[in-house]
């Protein structure tokens, strides 16, 4: 029997986000581990036709394109009805979404409710055991991990950002690209967008960054963060902050790393003057390498850091910045 794994990939005309490729990579791995897995990618967004082949190259056996200007976040209700229509047409066995504000925070759970199926959110891995899928996800702010299973023939899951590495594109991969007819125009949304205010984002976003430099309460004030900005600029890094730093207004809340902010998993996470409270580590703990700089040698951050420097950031960071600049030759 064929197992159909449907991954939802959201995109815009200009951009096929990494999250879509990650969820597709998770689907591909699942398809390979289950017997006879067929990986389908439903590509949704305004003017997204151009990304169809790219999804095949990144692991999809079949791509279904649903291109419509209304398929954007603030019309979550329209997206939800579209997803419902897609699932009815394709009758998948497993449905995967990126665990982002749309997939994990809104339409994933609502679709699961409408379909009467189980959903496991924020998965960082899975294992297949006796043809059943055991979804692995962090719980209790990352202090523990759980394997969860969904009951019933159809199941939904959302995958955490950066938990699955996108597959390298292989232009030799073959797959069918279809256009799926869904009557998006007839759908209605009780919620409407009044305005959107978005400043040009300075530097790199936390989601995209390979390196993140974060500061905590020990930075003393907003000025302290300008030292981190300079280091980040040299490293091509994004700047984040702990909850005290965000609550004190030293970094915007959109840059908060932690259980109540962004969950990040960069290659390198440099925690400066951050004690390492559980709330913060829930957001930063999955980073590949953690470097901690703190004047208190007993700070809990050193229990989770790979590399540590005991010292005042005022003394360490400027020298680190200059040395990095020399090394990187910029």
């Amino acid at each position: 029997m064929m197992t159909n794994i449907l991954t939802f990939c959201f995109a815009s005309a200009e951009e096929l986000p990494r999250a879509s490729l990650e969820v597709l990579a998770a689907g591909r791995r699942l398809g390979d581990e289950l017997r006879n897995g067929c990986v389908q990618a439903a590509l949704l967004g305004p003017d997204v036709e151009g990304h169809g082949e790219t999804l095949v190259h990144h692991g999809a056996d079949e791509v279904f394109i649903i291109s419509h200007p209304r398929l954007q976040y603030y019309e979550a209700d329209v997206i939800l009805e579209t997803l419902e229509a897609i699932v009815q047409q394709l009758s998948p066995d497993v449905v995967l979404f990126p665990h982002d504000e749309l997939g994990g925070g809104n339409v994933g759970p609502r679709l699961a409710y409408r379909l009467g199926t189980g959903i496991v959110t924020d998965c960082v891995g899975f294992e297949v055991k006796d043809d059943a899928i055991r979804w692995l996800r962090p719980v209790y702010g990352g202090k523990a991990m759980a394997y969860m299973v969904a009951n019933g023939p159809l199941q939904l899951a959302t995958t955490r950002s950066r938990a699955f590495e996108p597959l390298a594109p292989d232009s030799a991969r073959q797959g069918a690209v279809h256009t799926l007819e869904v009557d998006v125009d007839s759908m209605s949304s009780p919620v409407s967008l009044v305005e959107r205010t978005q400043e040009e984002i300075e530097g790199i976003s936390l989601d995209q960054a390979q390196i993140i430099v974060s500061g905590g309460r020990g930075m003393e004030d907003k000025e302290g963060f300008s030292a981190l900005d300079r280091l980040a600029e040299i490293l091509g890094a994004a700047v984040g902050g702990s909850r005290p730093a965000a609550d004190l207004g030293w970094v915007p809340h959109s840059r908060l790393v932690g259980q109540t902010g962004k969950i990040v998993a960069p290659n390198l996470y440099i925690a400066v003057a951050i004690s390492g409270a559980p709330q913060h580590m829930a957001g930063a703990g999955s980073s590949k390498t953690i470097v901690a700089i703190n004047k208190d040698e007993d700070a809990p951050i050193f229990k989770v850091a790979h590399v540590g420097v005991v010292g005042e950031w005022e003394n360490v960071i400027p020298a680190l910045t200059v040395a990095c600049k020399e090394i990187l030759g910029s």
Partner: protein
Amino acid sequence: MHIIVCLKQIIDPEIPPHIFQIDPVKRKQIRGRQALVISDFDAIALEVALQLKERTDGKVTAITIGQKEAVESLHTALAMGTDETMLISDPAFEGADSFGKAHILAAALCKLGEFDIVLCGRQAGDVELGLVGPFLAEKMGLPCVTLMANIEPGDGKVRLKRPIEGGYEILEAPLPFLATVTNDESNVPRYASVRGIRAAMRKKIPVWSAADLGLDPAEVGPETARIEMEELFIPKREMRCEFIEGESGPEKGRRLALRLKELKLI
């Protein structure tokens, strides 16, 4: 304007990892001596509700599903300025998953009658599935807006502020609706005043059972669960931090840069 906030009481999530304990058989955290608190985002949802109440002369009701100690959370909610609270408690609710809890809360909302807005935190601070809010909206057939930070009252409709990277969106939703709440600068939960706490302790909190809500326990108990935790474990961390030594801060900084280069991290 009547705003209902759904709260969950959890074991203080701020405890450090070395005293964090689980029961792998029951697949849950062991409380030990830890304090019980209102889950982070639920306290934030309550703050949003209280701010809206102050601007509209409205009323805030807080409800929670839990055992008798969950009354403490409701006392806190009262002390912060909540008008009414209800504890929804029944042995039959033990082991209900998010679907079950959404059904229980839906029955409670029906019993409460008229309301304009239902608020839930974006996710609980323990299991962090983030399902009950969206499920409850679907169960009740309410418009569902997610990850809102603030609400501006209006005529028949309200405006919701949703933080996005580098800015925000303003959405408009018709009443009644359900929103899940995330945090921003504007909704840091207030502290309860001493006088508020004293007054709250004197208030009698109604307890609603399955029978009071007209619920058949078979509809909401663990046997109806659609997801199940099969295994809970604490990942082993065999971490040893490599400390960069040096005579001074600047020297350590320079050595750190070299070490990062060696590790191919920069």
